[in-house]
């Protein structure tokens, strides 16, 4: 009976109701996004790094994780050390080098040349890309990602040219390569043009013989990544990090994001409660006469508070549902902005859509909404009925 009354009250004040709905929906969307951001970014990062089963990574001493310029010399002898180390199940060496990727001789308008990052790899031991179509590259072959293949208009079996970009002595050296396959590069950032070629071929072309930029190491199932790391760090002059360590380090940096997200999320909850509280305080004070009459007739405080709270709950339930949808859409948009962040792998997601985030946001919103409705309603029923009636009579 009184619930029906609550709905009609809302419908009767369409402008106020719509404005309140919009306000709460926007605040909810922000809350959803902040919850998605707080939990999402670290999870996607951890997933990304453990995606291919390589738990250790070695790089030249004293360089940053994704630095492409520095290299490890004498890799063959390092390989011997690695092979002799307990718990090493496989080694995936990588030489990264800036190159120019070109198609055709420049005569036709469709001809194109772009800066690319060539990754020299051992196709049998690599964790950098996932093969989508065709085969891994062997001698004189190259693997591209889908966007690059499309931009160049090349298919499997077509030829492209790879030219060395840096280094005075080797600049301009080039090789004709056949496209062997299409792959998805896990760590590529937006705008990167990653290509994969056989390691020896890239070493020859760039003059970096027996050098690698870094190597990924698979740890045997019965071995501890941390133990292997310690042993390797002692045996070779290289930087060895576990992926768990990288994730922990990244998490530490991302904790600023998380804190920011939590603060902004709380702010949006506070804004919601103030908004709903204001709306309810106004409509309660408008209806003090009616409330007094209902109390005088003998309707219990509980029913009156219940019906007024129902009003704010209905408001929050509707606006919240809309806000969840809006939040997901806005998150997608923000994701495209943030993924342009230079140097971050494209596969890192900032906003991960998890049912828990949505459920948490909705429950928090309903809790806040009911309290915000309850307080003014409860206060109104605490007033003396006779005093209210006296104030209402002419």
């Amino acid at each position: 009976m009184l619930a029906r009354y609550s709905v009609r009250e809302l419908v009767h004040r369409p402008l106020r109701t719509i404005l309140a709905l919009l306000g709460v929906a926007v605040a909810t969307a922000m809350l959803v996004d902040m919850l998605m951001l707080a939990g999402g970014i670290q999870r996607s990062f951890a997933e990304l790094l453990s995606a291919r089963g390589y738990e250790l990574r070695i790089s030249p001493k004293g360089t940053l994780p994704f630095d492409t310029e520095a290299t490890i010399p004498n890799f063959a002898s390092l390989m011997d050390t690695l092979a002799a180390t307990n718990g090493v199940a496989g080694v995936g060496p990588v030489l990264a080098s800036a190159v120019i990727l070109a198609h055709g001789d420049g005569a036709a308008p469709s001809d194109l040349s772009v800066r690319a990052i060539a990754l020299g790899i051992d196709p049998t031991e690599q964790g950098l890309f996932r093969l989508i179509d065709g085969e891994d590259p062997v001698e004189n072959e190259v693997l591209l990602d889908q966007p690059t293949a499309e931009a160049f208009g090349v298919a499997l079996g077509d030829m492209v040219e790879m030219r060395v970009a840096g280094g005075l002595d080797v600049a301009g050296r080039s090789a004709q390569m056949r496209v062997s396959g299409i792959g998805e590069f896990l760590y590529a950032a937006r705008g990167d043009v990653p290509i994969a070629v056989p390691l020896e071929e890239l070493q020859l072309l760039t003059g970096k013989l027996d050098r690698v930029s870094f190597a990924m190491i698979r740890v045997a199932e019965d071995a501890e990544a941390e133990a292997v790391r310690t042993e390797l760090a002692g045996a070779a002059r290289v930087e060895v990090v576990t992926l768990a360590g990288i994730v922990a380090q990244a998490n530490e940096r991302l904790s600023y994001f998380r804190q920011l997200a939590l603060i902004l999320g709380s702010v949006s909850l506070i804004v919601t409660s103030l908004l709903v509280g204001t709306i309810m305080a106004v409509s309660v004070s408008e209806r003090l006469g009616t409330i007094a009459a209902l109390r005088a007739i003998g309707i219990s405080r509980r029913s009156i508070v219940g019906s007024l709270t129902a009003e704010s709950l209905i408001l929050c339930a509707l606006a919240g549902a809309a806000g969840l949808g809006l939040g997901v859409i806005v998150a997608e948009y923000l994701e495209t902005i943030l993924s342009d962040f230079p140097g971050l792998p494209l596969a890192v997601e900032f906003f991960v859509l998890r049912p828990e985030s949505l459920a948490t946001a909705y429950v928090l919103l309903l809790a806040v909404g009911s309290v915000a409705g309850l307080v003014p309603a409860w206060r109104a029923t605490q007033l003396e009925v006779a005093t209210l009636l006296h104030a209402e009579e002419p």
Partner: protein
Amino acid sequence: MTDTVGSVNLEADSDRTIVTASDVVREYRMSGVPVRALRGVSLSVAEREFIAVMGPSGSGKSTLLHLLGGVDVATSGRVVFLGQDFGRMSVEARARLRLRKVGLVFQRFHLLPMLTALENVELPIAALGVRRAERRDRAASLLARVGLDDRLGHRPGELSGGQRQRVAIARALANEPAVLLADEPTGELDRATSHGVLELFQRLNSEGTTIVVATHDPELAAGASRHVEVVDGRIGS
């Protein structure tokens, strides 16, 4: 003792006291200053009475009605309603007693604008937990009793002042109260409509409803069977 059983019962019935106020004082505090609205009033309302409470503005008529109905409690003195002392009851216990036994009618009707006439009358019945079908029937027959059987689905905004007051009276009668307390029920109505309300009260009273009405309206007062004059917080003679 020599009377027939029937007439003994009838006499006992008509003598039954609904509510008694004994030497009640009601003091309000207006911004710290005490204001005595009632200064020692005693009044007894017997079943089937139709009492008009009259007196100048500010004399304490509304306050007396509120005390008789347990809407408010006396600062001193006692109000006993069907054997229960309002002064010893909790706020919610008084509310429950009002819901079952007191019918209230206000000058400004105080109907819920978003509910239809039928739903407004249903409201106090629903508060007792009566099922929908039954309370609909009861509300509809109450509205028929006040002459509004053709207005069940109308909202208060679609009704005239007189019709609204009839809906309010039907609502007040919804749970078959022991007494109907009406504070200036014709205060917002024109003469013709006021006359209709008086006729309705007289009919209800003749059908057995006990009525106490506070009013400035001489015609309404003239229709009552007993008159009480309140002057400056006391009952005058």
